[in-house]
């Protein structure tokens, strides 16, 4: 694995956000998305909306769309569980909903409390009407996120990209 590619995959996501003109990003603070969140917070053209729970983000995306802006959500796999009833909005109104999920509860997970939600994240998203794409390698991020952005915003679709725990790397618990 190329070290540079490994470090820069969040930048590839950011570049696609800029390419498709995303103006609002909702997120709950997350280690896996930390670099992307930092870049978004520094960008005056993107409203960074820190949420108390991920389900707030579904309403945010709906409102952004109704007002003519593109939005995206960043969350951990556990956050998908928090969103389920709010995904009602996506099904009933039909608007682009791009969600980038950093996975927990899978490869090299040390905390079994992450496993119940992590192991059902993808089927739950599918049941809620999302197209889902998994990314395992840093080199795949650019192409998959590019495709997901185009499907979401050109096709008015709900699309989730699952960034695998193997991609994100083992969580280090030593400070």
């Amino acid at each position, binding site marked *: 694995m190329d070290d540079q590619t490994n470090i820069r995959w969040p930048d590839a996501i950011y570049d696609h956000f800029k390419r498709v003109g995303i103006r*609002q990003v909702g997120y709950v603070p997350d280690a896996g998305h930390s670099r992307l969140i930092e870049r978004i917070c520094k960008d005056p053209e993107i409203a960074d909306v*820190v949420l108390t729970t991920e*389900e707030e983000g579904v309403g945010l995306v709906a409102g*952004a769309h109704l007002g003519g802006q593109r939005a995206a959500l960043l969350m951990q796999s556990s956050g998908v569980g928090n969103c389920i009833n709010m995904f009602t909005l996506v099904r*009933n109104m039909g608007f682009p909903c791009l969600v980038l999920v950093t996975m927990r509860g899978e490869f090299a997970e040390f905390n079994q409390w992450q496993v119940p939600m992590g192991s059902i994240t993808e089927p739950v998203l599918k049941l809620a009407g999302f197209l889902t794409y998994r990314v395992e390698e840093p080199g795949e991020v650019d192409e998959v996120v590019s495709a997901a952005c185009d499907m979401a915003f050109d096709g008015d679709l709900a699309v989730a990209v699952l960034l695998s725990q193997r991609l994100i790397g083992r969580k280090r618990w030593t400070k």
Partner: protein
Amino acid sequence: MSAERTKAEPAMLERRKLVRDLLVDRRDLMVVCGLGSATYDVAAAGDHPLNLYLWGAMGGAAMIGLGLALARPDRRVAVLTGDGEALMGLGALATIGVKQPKNLVIVVLDNGHYGETGMQASHTQGGANLVAIAKGCGFPDALALTDQAGVARVRELLHAGQGPILVNARISNEETPRFLPVRDGHAIKLRFMQAVNS
């Protein structure tokens, strides 16, 4: 103490009249309606393409308001919702407090009950004070509306107040006739977006 005060407070405002009064001469105000009675009240005040009627997604109305307010800083956004709906999305008040959208006003139609499910008591009757919560979340203005004399001021706030503002309107809990607007979310969305962009 606050719970006792809330219970003892006479509920002065009738919800249908209140909502009608708030939406008089509404111009291009965008209105997000929380599910249940708030949706019926806003529809009963006069159907309008800039009404976003919700029939589900309980707890989400304020956040839809935030997304809209951020997307259209040139326009005013009102969220009209019930106490139960607002309570389910309390975290949204903290999120809105962080973003400080100047063009967003939330009006809670607070009858202290879950009207849609059989008038069970809500937490506002048990002591939860939404005005204090909004202030604690950093809303520059949050106020209780308890009588007709305050309605004109709240209407001004909808159009010109510096948000985010939360108005907790104490309404009576008598039953109102059902007034059911369109339920098709796609139709509601398309009509709303055409009106926003026209």
